[in-house]
């Protein structure tokens, strides 16, 4: 939404400048020549521009609120998934080290990557992952990931 909001804001401001000009011009004409057709036309243009400014501003506000809502929803979803993961890890009785390894696995790191990140030996990580799979009742990394996806898709985790 970023760029569109900026463009809309800029258009609103341009319209406002035009509106002020026409209102001022119409006022000057009235003072000079009284009410004539020309003034009515100018007044109409001014009115249309003012309406455009107000509607544009309202639309901009809607756009900003919409963007904020999606950002909030995303944050909630992230937080919710994080909570779900922590909750399951606790249920399965993962040790702190296992929970770390499991989280890295969920985030897509392979065994070598996890070993490097944790400064541990490949064998250790592989053993820890095996423990995680066993406690979670799955046989592979894909199975582990699927557990969470399944819950999310089912709505078991519960929309807020």
């Amino acid at each position, binding site marked *: 939404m970023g760029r569109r909001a900026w463009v809309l804001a800029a258009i609103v*401001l341009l319209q406002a400048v035009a509106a002020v000009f026409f209102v001022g011009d119409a006022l000057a004409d009235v003072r000079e020549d009284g009410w004539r057709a020309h003034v009515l036309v100018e007044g109409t243009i001014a009115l249309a521009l003012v309406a455009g400014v107000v509607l544009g501003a309202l639309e901009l506000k809607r756009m900003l609120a919409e963007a904020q809502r999606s950002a909030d929803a995303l944050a909630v979803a992230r937080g919710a998934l994080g909570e779900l993961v922590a909750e399951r890890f606790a249920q399965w009785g993962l040790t702190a080290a296992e929970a770390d390894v499991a989280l890295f696995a969920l985030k897509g790191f392979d065994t070598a990557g996890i070993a490097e990140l944790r400064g541990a030996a490949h064998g250790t990580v592989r053993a820890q992952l095996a423990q995680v799979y066993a406690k979670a009742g799955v046989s592979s990394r894909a199975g582990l990931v699927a557990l969470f996806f399944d819950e999310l898709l089912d709505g078991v985790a519960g929309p807020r």
Partner: protein
Amino acid sequence: MDANETATVRGWDPLVKLTHWGIALAVLVNGVFTEEGSDWHVWVGTGMAALLLVRLLWGFIGPKEARFSAFPPSPTRAADHVADIVAGRKLAHASHNGLGALMAYALWATLGVVAVTGFLMSGVPGTASARVEAPMVPAVTAPLAPVAEEADEEREEADEAEEGEGGEGAEGGEGPEWIEEVHEVAANLLFVLAALHIGGVLFETRRSGPAVIRRMTGGVRG
């Protein structure tokens, strides 16, 4: 309600940023560069007035942080903020802090006076009321005073010429002298307020971090 210690404060919305920097630029340009009473001066002033009007409209219908209701002009809030400063408390404000709010209203009121008096003198550019040149005394720069006197004389001559033609001079676009006086005083006040405003922002930035400035300078997503 506007104090929140955990949440990161969001940047101002595009309309707030555009009006803020647009008005700042207009004030700088008209205070320093354009010749008072010139077409350019009046054009820039007209644009500034439009930006001001939109920002005020935004104060009623805009997002929560941009609304007047988020930062009512309140001596109590200002005093609270002073207490925060004294106590070294650094609260994040979703909108303006108590002192900043007062400054915003002071700046807007002054801008409004400058815009209205400017309009009373010159109307909008290219229109009947602006066609008769209305040279003005430079508002800010004292060294230009001799020039100002010349301009004054010119204008008085124009006045006389007009009266000689039997016109009342009303359409000449130069109201009474006091309008010009008010315009100048308000313009000078504007620069004092702007300096205080910048000082306040710098102070608050040193005190509680660069977030204050980044909200107004941040980029498209800022």
